[in-house]
């Protein structure tokens, strides 16, 4: 054994530690994304859709605009959900120009179109915009945020009002903060 022996042991241990931490945090991230994935379709059940935005026979569309952070988890969650008579469908698109037909849109934000731009494009349309604090500070109607280790969300009811969407008080009750829609 040469004189580099204890250093490499230390390096090895550090690597393992980092790796371990990585694994742990990766696991935590997984859990977080899984919860968010299950929440995403559920939001639709607490929305008062304006007439014409959701037809009876057609499935409810949950769109991910930008790179999809959920992956198969979202498909699984959508498959197991049923909102009234609607099944839940997942669509992945890269920009808001294809957003027609979406009911719920998760704005991931991409190099091509940032979250702010997406929000601007979708403003006033009856589409429930969901953003994630992980991906940026810009907030849609619902904005995921971790609160003491739990997945919770902020609600911007004003944006929802602009899009002619009504949000259930029960949902508002669960939010960390609610930006009220203003005087009725």
């Amino acid at each position: 054994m040469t004189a580099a022996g204890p250093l490499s042991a230390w390096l090895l241990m550090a690597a393992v530690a980092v790796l371990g931490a990585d694994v742990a945090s990766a696991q935590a991230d997984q859990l977080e994304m899984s919860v968010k994935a299950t929440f995403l379709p559920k939001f639709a059940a607490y929305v008062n859709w304006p007439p014409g935005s959701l037809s009876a026979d057609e499935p409810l569309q949950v769109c991910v605009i930008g790179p999809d952070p959920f992956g198969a988890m979202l498909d699984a969650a959508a498959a197991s959900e049923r909102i009234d008579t609607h099944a839940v469908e997942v669509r992945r698109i890269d920009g808001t120009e294809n957003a027609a037909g979406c009911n719920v849109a998760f704005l991931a934000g991409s190099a091509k179109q940032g979250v702010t731009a997406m929000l601007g494009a979708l403003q006033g349309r009856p589409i429930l915009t969901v953003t994630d604090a992980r991906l940026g500070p810009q907030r849609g109607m619902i904005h995921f945020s971790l609160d003491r280790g739990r997945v919770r969300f902020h609600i911007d009811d004003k944006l929802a009002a602009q899009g002619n969407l009504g949000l259930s008080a029960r949902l508002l009750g669960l939010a960390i903060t609610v930006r009220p829609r203003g005087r009725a």
Partner: protein
Amino acid sequence: MNMPAPAAPSRFQAIIVPLMVASLLIAGLWLLYQNERSYRAEQVRITRVQAEILAASVTAAVDFRDRASAQEAVNALRVSSQIQSAGVYDVKGERFAGYQRSDRPLPPTLSRARQSVDKIIEVTIPVIRSGTKIGTVYLASLIDPLSRRLTRYAIIALLIVMTSLVLGLLGYNQAVLREVNSRLQDQAGSLAVANRELQFQMEERARAEEQLRQAQKMQALGQLTGGIAHDFNNMLTVIQGSADLLRRPGLSEEKRLRFAGAIVDTAARAALLTGQLLAFARRQPLRPEVLDINQRIRGMVNILEPSLGIDIKLVTDLQDGLWPVEVDPGQLEATLLNIVMNSRDAMPEGGTITIRTRNASSDAGGENKQAISVVIEDTGLGMDVETVGHVFEPFFTTKTVGKGTGLGLSQVYGFAAQSGGEVRLTSQIDKGTIVTIMLPRTDKRPITADLGASRLTSQGGGGVVLLVEDNAQVGNFAEALLGELGHSVLRAHDAQEALKLVQNGASFDVVFTDVVMPGMNGIELADTLRRDRPELPIVLTTGYSDRIVTTGSPGYPVITKPYRLESLAAIIDQALAAAA
């Protein structure tokens, strides 16, 4: 009194109350039973509702796994003391939120929920969001312990029992009242019957008393006739004898006058006696007149003195200005005569009779009563106290049989009472007797009539008198009198004869008819004659007539038998004068 039969309605009433009570009890018990039966189901329903409410309120919390929110909602149920444990479970059946009370732990998973126990109701309600079951709510609730339920039932039962008691009491009261009522009615009925009976008895008694009085009167009258017949015989002897003597030829004027006077006086006494009898039998009409008693007494002295005899002195002491009174003159004369005769009988050895009149006034009763007193005093044998007590009773007499009728003083008593006054008698043995008659003063003025002193003052005579009389002797007598007065007489022996004379055109000025006649009576004859000649003067005469006495002669002047010459003359003249 007819009473309606109360039997049927009262029986109905008697059963209605117990029936009501029974139905009330049965209904109450049935309700309790139903309540008990459905109690558990009811409690389950209530618990389910509570669970449903909880489920609705935790829907979002379960959906978004917000434990704190869910716990808040579940804790709201703590206010219910009955809920033992409440839990919210996720779709997998894992406990998500909840609480429990000490003796009933909340199952950690639904699959491990225990079986229901009698005291506990467990319900599970799915949490549904948009048609999807996302979780379950579990509630375990305590049923009211039996003791509490029984308490509730006991209260209800108590209320029912109290109501029943009240009803029962009312019914009982009603029954008692009915009973009392019917008994009262019975009593009233028997009282009415008794009352009627009593009244009937009273009437019977009154009738019997009246009959007794009448019988007594009849008996008395029967007894009287003996005495009266005796008296009358005496008087008739005098009259008969005097008449016989008058027939003898060659009588001196003095003797003739004496014998005639005897007849007249005796006849007068006989008339008074019949007056007494009639008064007693109450068949004489009272005709009060306003009189000056002093005048009357003065007039009577002439009649009284002769019958008193030599040994008895009659003294009058009459106050001047004596107040007038209103009495029947005939009754007055009879009264004075009775008393004076009694006094005479009480003085067989002679004595003095004093007649005194005075004005008297008394303040009895707070009113100033004015009356006159007529006192007849004698110096005779007197009466003891015991006799004085009976003296006014009818038929009471101290005289021997045949000597007195016992009617005199009772007539006096009756006269005084009928005239509105009173009579008092005091007496002392061997000293004498004082009879005092009080008569009330009248405000009316007396008509000064001259009586006794009137002589033959017939003004004209000379009229034709239709004399109707069925009794031959009386008719002859009347004819003689009328002739003596200067009238000519047309004689009929009854009403029929009179009417026939009239039909045959007989003319006459006045009718003088007896009342009591066979066939048509005098009054009917008078009415018949008056129909053709309304102004015809008619004079009736009667000794005794029911009709005249009870109804008064209907507008015809009446002269009662026996009548004196003067009276006949006067009444005939009056009748003729009235027609003229």
